[in-house]
């Protein structure tokens, strides 16, 4: 079975009950995708499937074989995208555990156009953060939006 992750092909036959989050982490060594809650509430496992944010902990791995998957490792290989830069510079991450999911959610949001502050809040409301109180995350996404649509 073929998986296309961050533009690379991986061949592996996961068991039917393997979740995407486990396939990425344990199968492909892509540990940037985090496991935070196990009930779909925290969003730390968010990845993009065909460009849309999905919870990798609520997705059976086999269901996304053949689809274009982007994890945090594939957002901007080798350098920081301006969204990532903005998150770091604005203090939008502290412990960093929510950052991968948060960034992927924001990538999809910014691709849809320039969001308002409320749209940002709403878009990241399924990504929990316990450190920042969200203020600087929102600010970081706002700043990144100023810089253009391709985060």
């Amino acid at each position: 079975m073929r998986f296309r992750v961050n533009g690379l092909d991986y061949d592996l036959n996961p068991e039917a009950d393997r979740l995407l989050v486990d396939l990425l982490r344990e199968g492909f060594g892509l540990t940037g995708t985090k496991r935070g809650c196990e009930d779909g509430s925290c969003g730390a496992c968010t990845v993009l499937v065909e460009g849309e944010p999905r919870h990798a902990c609520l997705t059976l791995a086999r269901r996304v074989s053949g689809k274009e998957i982007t994890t945090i490792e594939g957002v901007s290989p080798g350098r920081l995208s301006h969204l990532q830069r903005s998150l770091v510079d604005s203090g939008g991450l502290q412990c960093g555990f929510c950052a991968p999911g948060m960034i992927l959610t924001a990538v999809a949001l910014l691709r849809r156009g320039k969001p308002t502050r409320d749209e940002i809040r709403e878009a990241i409301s399924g990504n929990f953060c316990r450190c920042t109180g969200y203020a600087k995350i929102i600010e970081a996404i706002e700043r990144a939006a100023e810089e253009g649509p391709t985060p």
Partner: protein
Amino acid sequence: MTKVVGARVPLVDGPAKATGKALYAADLVRPGMLHGAIARSGESHARILSIDLWDAMKEPGVAGIITGSLYPRRFGVLPITRDETMLAVDKVRYRGEGIAAVAATSRVAAERAARRVKVEYERLPEYADPEESAGPVAEPIHAGTEGSTNLQKEVRQEFGNVEEEFRRAAHIVSVRGKFPGVTHAALEPHATLAEWGANGRLTVWSSTQVPHYLHRALAEVFDLPAHQIRVVKPTVGGGFGGKGDPMPHEMVAAALSRETGHPVQIVLSREEVFLLNHGRHPTRNTLRIAADAEGHLRAIDLDALIDGGAASSFGTVTTYYNGVLSVGPYDVPAFRYRGRRVYTNRPTSGAMRAHGSVNTRYSMEVALDMLAEEIGVDPTELRLRNFQAPFSTTVNQFRITSNSAVRCLEAARDRSGWRSKFRKMPLGRGIGVGCGFFISGSNSPIHFTPRFPQSTVHLKLDMDGGVTVHSGASDIGQGSDTVLTQIVAEVLGLEPGQVHVAATDTDTAPVDLGSYSSRVTFMMGNAGRKAAEAMLETLRTAAGEISGRSPDSFRAVDGVLASDEGGGVKVPFLDAVHRAMEHRGALQSSGSYESPKIGGSFKGAKAGTSPAYSYAAYIAEVSVDLDLGAIHVEKVWAGFDCGRPINPLLVEGQIEGSIHMGLGQLLGEEMRYRGTRVMNSSLLDYGTLSAVDMPEVECLLVGEADPEGPFGAKEAGEGPLPPVLPAVANAVYDAVGIRFTELPLSPDRVWRALRERERKGGLQKPPSPGGS
């Protein structure tokens, strides 16, 4: 003027975190690694009659199983209360305690096998009610508690003449507060990887706030010389106190590695994290304050009953803090406290951000609001009358140094437009104030004799000109590596990128008490500064040798050592380094911090003493939905005194994050129990606030430099939390005239109170101080 210190320097590990490259304990893999799982007790108080491992052992993939009786040595974060074992021995004390542990070739195999462990129990009476636990009980949870009760710790203190002050008082106000437990809910679940090397040396990678406590506890539990153990802290995904204790699963992973000869990793499930808890204690308190006719505080009389759960953890400290931290930020001539912490058969409570101070602070600040109303003064004015003076001593002999409480409150009051809002907005809208203070690290290290410093930092400088900084302080997301980088860079006149912090590998890091009690910036910062200054001395000497100027005339700025002597000269940093290295090799320096001798000499006098305190004054504006009871916090103005901030970006992050956590506790978070059973052990059910629930926050950093803090800095990690709860509660009172002294203020409970008030004569704004 400083260049790097005081600047908004982004986290040094930010790029690694933003790209998914930062490795957390659950991300680590070692060759041959097995996965561990823990079979947990479904009983909350029971004697173990037998454990049957047969079925578990037969599961495919199982490599080893252990039970508690193999490793019965006790540990605990405080040396005086070691009452935990890695797995239950003889009896279980809470539902979720480990019984046996399995190592297997996959996570799933280990979990399957753990489920097959069969245990026979004899049930014992369960204790869920702290009142009951405070009295004689049929079956004390731990042996050795006084008078056959579940009392773990009792503190009684009295200073000044409390009785007399209450007799003479013009005003007496009392509050009875009830606070459920809350928990850290750091986003990263705890994880550990342990590997017993062929030479008999143990390495443990763990998501911990205090590598050196874990180090110490492992040595005790496995009866090894400490130098045979190495603890490494990878990137940690938040702690807030929840990763401060040495934890049972960390011992279990090590034991399983020893039994199987393989590295073993244990990653806790979110439910297990909730059962491990160590969060803020459920507490009931009764607080009375006495004041003279002008509203000057004369006495505090406080009683707290604290539900500790199944083990001690930091509980002895908690018991003290619940009392002694009530005296600041105000000047109070008399103070009496009785605090009791009892065991119950619930998951253990421990230290959580603003440890021991939140619940007391809530009652105190609500009481002050009531006092202001009784006297007819504005509550901000009442506080201004009572703030303790800078450079003073409290009744319980805390040494107070820098203190900008007044500026905090004035800033928040001005920015918020307090005067035009307080008691002046329509029904349903309100504004309120709450203040606080917090320690910048405990003055007495709990583990070491006072002859050892609390923090030590080593610097290494080699031919490449890069500075490696070794420290045992642990960055758990708060940015201590960044702060240390800034301090060293500042002293040596370098860009932050030339300084590399190599923290928290106990093989290379000097002993440090880790990240808790808001000690890191102050203590590690001072140690780091001294280490860098010692290095600078060496480089000045070298620069003097190169240039013929006197060493003392050199300053380090912008990558050079500059002297104004003899028409001025600039020696490039690297030249000075190379000169100094001649015939000597790499340069090293060391700095350490030891807090001054302060505090009284009575029993418990050290609790709450600190070389410096942060101060805070918050104002919050709310609207209350009169139909549905929901409280909407519109905005918080956070006046904060952390001395001179080393990194305002990070300080603001601490304030905003603290407000998130404080509002969570106020508005909805709660460890819900039915008896001893946790009802909401998942992030969906526990209810930390989401992005759409958060108000706007304006941070007002108005502190003045502290004389002893590194570059004038004090703590900012915990002090920002407590004031927000009472500020909002007092704002709710301003909005609807109802005092809430039981948390959380969830919409259903607020709604009930609103309805009851309507029935009893109507909902209205409280009277304004000048008479309405």
